[in-house]
């Protein structure tokens, strides 16, 4: 055979071998055998806890930890629910009677956080919107509203909030016409508490998924945890994700979007993220995602950024100390901070613009 032809085939063989190697590397499966998962319903959502077991740790130990976590979450739900009787309901009942409410000591820490986050977000995150949430019907798990409330009712509730005192940890009110709702912050707090319980039980590698909001720690064996971010308006059914984030140590990833809790009335979509300035669903964005180490901050900030809208999200992120954030506008454009864009693995067709 011609020497040059032989060389050609030799190189071709090497090329094919290399290509096969890449394919094999890409297809390699991560370790799954050491990941244990438990799911349960709580806080009005599906809670999924995944733990990567280190050598010496057993599934029984995980089950024992979850055995303690489930009742803790049930008690937590009771405490912060606006429907069932608990600490927060008692506060709301006093406010409804026009009285000042004394806040139970166990509620103080989150009240203090809510007050600070409300200030940091310049009021875009506000737990005093409970009356608006009630008006729009987002509390009713059995059936959301089917049409927007009256303009007068919204105006009256907004006026009551405007006249009400700022949130305080020990006492609140009187604040006639105002109800408190911690739905924009409690999930983050609860996810953090589940994480703390897992750590106390000796688990250093976990993922807590609270109905799509994620608190992660450690790694999944030799790789990081991989979190997909849902596309608010998937261009194709086969591509439901905007992209992927791989976690780095202790991280919380929260997204607020308009695509699940909503109803439609006369062709218009009304979702659950209410702008405290207008009393109506915030317009301009379809989703807002933040990454930070503090789950309570992440929860409040994803809501505040969504409410801030396309022109305000960047400043709000700065004001709240969030340096990793991404939003999608109603026009489909995706914007992100530099720190978020640097690590985000966007899906094909998703173009991320950095806003410094």
């Amino acid at each position, binding site marked *: 055979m011609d020497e040059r032809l032989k*060389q050609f085939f030799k190189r071709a063989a090497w090329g094919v071998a290399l290509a096969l190697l890449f394919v094999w590397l890409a297809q390699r499966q*991560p370790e799954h055998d050491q990941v244990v998962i438990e799911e*349960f319903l709580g806080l009005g959502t599906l809670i999924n806890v995944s733990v990567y077991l280190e050598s010496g740790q057993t599934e029984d130990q995980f089950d024992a930890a979850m055995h303690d976590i489930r009742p803790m979450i049930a008690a937590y739900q009771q405490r912060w629910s606006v429907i069932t009787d608990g600490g927060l309901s008692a506060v709301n009942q006093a406010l409804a009677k026009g009285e000042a409410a004394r806040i139970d000591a166990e509620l103080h820490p989150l009240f203090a956080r809510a007050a600070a986050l409300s200030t940091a977000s310049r009021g875009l995150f506000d737990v005093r919107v409970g009356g608006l949430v009630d008006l729009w019907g987002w509390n*009713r798990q059995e059936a959301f509203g089917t049409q927007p409330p009256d303009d007068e009712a919204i105006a009256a509730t907004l006026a009551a909030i405007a006249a009400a005192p700022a949130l305080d940890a020990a006492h609140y009110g009187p604040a006639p016409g105002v109800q408190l709702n911690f739905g924009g912050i409690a999930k983050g707090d609860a996810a953090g508490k589940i994480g703390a319980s897992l750590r106390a039980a000796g688990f250093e590698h976990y993922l807590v998924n609270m109905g799509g909001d994620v608190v992660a720690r450690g790694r999944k064996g030799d790789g990081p945890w*991989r*979190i997909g971010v849902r596309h608010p308006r998937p261009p194709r059914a086969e591509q*439901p994700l905007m992209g992927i984030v791989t976690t780095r140590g202790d991280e919380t990833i929260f997204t607020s979007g308009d*695509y699940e809790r909503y109803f439609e009335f006369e062709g218009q979509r009304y979702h659950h993220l209410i702008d405290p300035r207008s009393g109506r669903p915030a317009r301009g964005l379809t989703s807002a995602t933040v990454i930070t180490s503090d789950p309570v901050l992440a929860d409040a900030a994803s809501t505040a950024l969504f409410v801030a809208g396309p022109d305000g999200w960047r400043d709000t992120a700065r004001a709240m100390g969030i340096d990793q954030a991404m939003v999608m506008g109603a026009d489909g454009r995706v914007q992100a901070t530099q720190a978020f864009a640097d690590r985000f693995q966007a899906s094909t067709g998703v173009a991320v613009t950095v806003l410094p």
Partner: protein
Amino acid sequence: MSLADRLLVMVLFGVVGLSFAAFWTPGGPATEAEIRVGGELVATLDLSHPGEHHIEGHQGISVLRVEPGRLRFVESPCRNRVCIHRGWLNTAGDSSACLPNRVSVSLRGSGAGAVDAVNH
């Protein structure tokens, strides 16, 4: 390097690049779905077998439709439709639930690109 070598190198790079672009989508495909009622596993569905499954929840029947590689809630006794708004689920690691009916669905699979959770 001869012209043929150069051509070959270009073709190989091209093939690798194009395959990557064509096959890499984040999120691995799900192969099965775990169905729970009130947190208790009641069924594991193979997503390669299309069909409809009627799951008895706390308030009534939730209907799940399976098509090759994907699944969705099509009917449920809830009125707020959160489960149905989720649409088709096809990514391993994704999940959805009909809270009023206490029925939840979690997709499993371990192919390339599978995620551990979907943020939504």
